[in-house]
């Protein structure tokens, strides 16, 4: 048991069950997770392993069937909308699909001004707000003057995802949940996005929970790694320990499945019978 004071977010025995009776699906099954302040932790698993469900529970978007979440040592209470809103100033998310993350009726300005308001800056003079927005945009290599009167659909996928990071920059949450933030953009923009996330973490000392199916990516960004399969955590530990010396059979398979450059990629291990 690690010192409780160190963990900023902790889930104990988290379980989520969808459906009833014989159609019951246990998406997340008694999972214990712990995220320490300022660290990047990854949750890695195949599609259908329950990693997104776990993220949604941590974010307070869906309630767990069983188990508790502790935020900064206190038990999380999200029974009213006011409490949820307060929690969301501390935890924010970037999702997989940038195209569906935006309100299509709002201009970029509105979106960024919303973020300033959430941080309690609604009474600031307008010039100050513009300064803040310009700073946030330049942090992600976008030009505020070019964006100021645009709608989200006028941007490319990579730009949208970068603007999402600009939002996080303005909000300065304590925790960021990044749910496959790079799986829909190409390898080159991926490097840019990862770079920005890391820069952001160093700047505002944020805790990042990184959710991905690409174990190579997880290894590159994170300090500690959780491997998830069929709703359970099968292995956890520091990144070096888990990726370079995997203990669980499942982890070994995941690492084998990723194409490599300096080592041979063994295709003979493919098991077609798994549907």
């Amino acid at each position, binding site marked *: 048991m690690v010192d409780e004071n160190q963990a900023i977010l902790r889930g104990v025995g988290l379980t989520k069950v969808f459906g009833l009776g014989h159609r019951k699906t246990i998406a997340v099954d008694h999972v214990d997770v712990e995220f320490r302040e300022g660290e990047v932790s990854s949750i890695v698993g195949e599609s259908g392993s329950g990693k997104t469900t776990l993220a949604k529970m941590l974010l307070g978007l869906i309630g767990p069937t069983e188990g508790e979440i502790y935020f900064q040592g206190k038990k999380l209470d999200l029974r009213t909308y006011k409490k949820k809103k307060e929690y969301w100033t501390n935890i924010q998310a970037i999702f997989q699909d940038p195209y569906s993350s935006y309100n299509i009726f709002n201009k970029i300005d509105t979106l960024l001004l919303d973020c300033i308001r959430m941080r309690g800056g609604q009474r600031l003079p307008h010039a100050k707000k513009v300064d803040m927005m310009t700073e946030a945009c330049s942090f992600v290599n976008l030009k505020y003057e070019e964006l100021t009167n645009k709608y989200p659909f006028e941007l490319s996928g990579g730009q949208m995802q970068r603007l999402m990071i600009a939002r996080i920059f303005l909000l300065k949450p304590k925790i960021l949940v990044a749910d496959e933030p790079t799986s829909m953009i190409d390898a080159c923009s991926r490097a840019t996005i990862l770079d920005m996330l890391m820069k952001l973490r160093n700047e505002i000392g944020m805790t990042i929970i990184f959710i991905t199916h690409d174990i190579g990516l997880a290894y590159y960004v994170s300090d500690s790694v959780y491997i998830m399969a069929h709703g359970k955590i099968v292995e956890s530990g520091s990144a070096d320990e888990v990726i370079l010396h995997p203990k669980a059979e499942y982890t070994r398979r995941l690492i084998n499945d990723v194409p490599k450059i300096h080592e041979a990629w063994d295709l003979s291990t*493919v098991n077609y019978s798994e549907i």
Partner: protein
Amino acid sequence: MGKVMLEVNELTTKYITRFGENVYAVDHVSLKVEEGKSLGIAGESGCGKSTLALSLMGYYFAPLHYTSGEIIIDGQKITGMDPDDIRRKILGKEIAYIPQAAMNALNPTLKIIHFIEDVIRAHDPKASKKEIYELARERFEILGLPEEVLQKYPVELSGGMKQRTVIATSVILSPKVLIADEPSSALDVTSQKMVIKMLRDLMEKGYVKAMIFITHELPLLYNVTDDIMVMYAGQIVERGTAQEVVFDPLHPYSKGLMGAIIVPESGVRNVKLTAIPGTPPNLKNPPSGCRFADRCKYVQPECKVHSIDFRDIGNGRAYRCIFSEEELRKAYQNG
């Protein structure tokens, strides 16, 4: 040297926008694929990779238009053929195409076997149900797909399974050339590996004689294909074997792409990812000189004046840059 299965000479195709502007997304592309070989095409999004894949089939529909150049499949020239003939005799039989979201091609109201019947009847209206079933069953067995899949509806299958089913269906008439356009980018790593294994099996068992594989994932490309071509802004900027292009890239753009590789190997964490700044140019009015000049670290004033030739340096290696091989290697060593 084996028999050339697919030969493309100076192919140019364009999009015509609704304002009447011409966008040349494939600009004088030449390539050759021999029997039993596979060719990979790498590049960022928006570089014309997918347009090249569509153009290679010889069947064009608006807003994509054919401009010039020729495509030769196993000695048969298909450019200039009647579109109806191409659809009936070439597509599926000589050349097959797997799009990125191939699994969405399945009709949700048809069982897989009826979908396959549709495909075969389009080329051979007289084929009997029994023949088709036998062919499909045999092919599925060889490719490691369970027979009961044939009697299922698409909703009953997982994403990876659907993708493999569509691939098996698209090559059921044993085409000579297969074009796979990011066949695994929507799948997780385990299903991706199955798809790759299947494509390899197809090549090894001779159902497909040559393959073109398009992706932006370089580690994947390195493991799947024999040769790699790097594409930028509608042009080919580098060509070579997979080994050469990944470990000894010549063009500064290829070098930049290699800097964004992430693999789970020890030592990766200490390498700093280098992203190429900026975005690809707008092809409505491409730059007159080198198209990569605005984003290049080693740019010289003369880069922006003339268009750069695609220089052949022997052994199938070629690149498009004003610098010589030695100069480039030296520049990369110094960072």
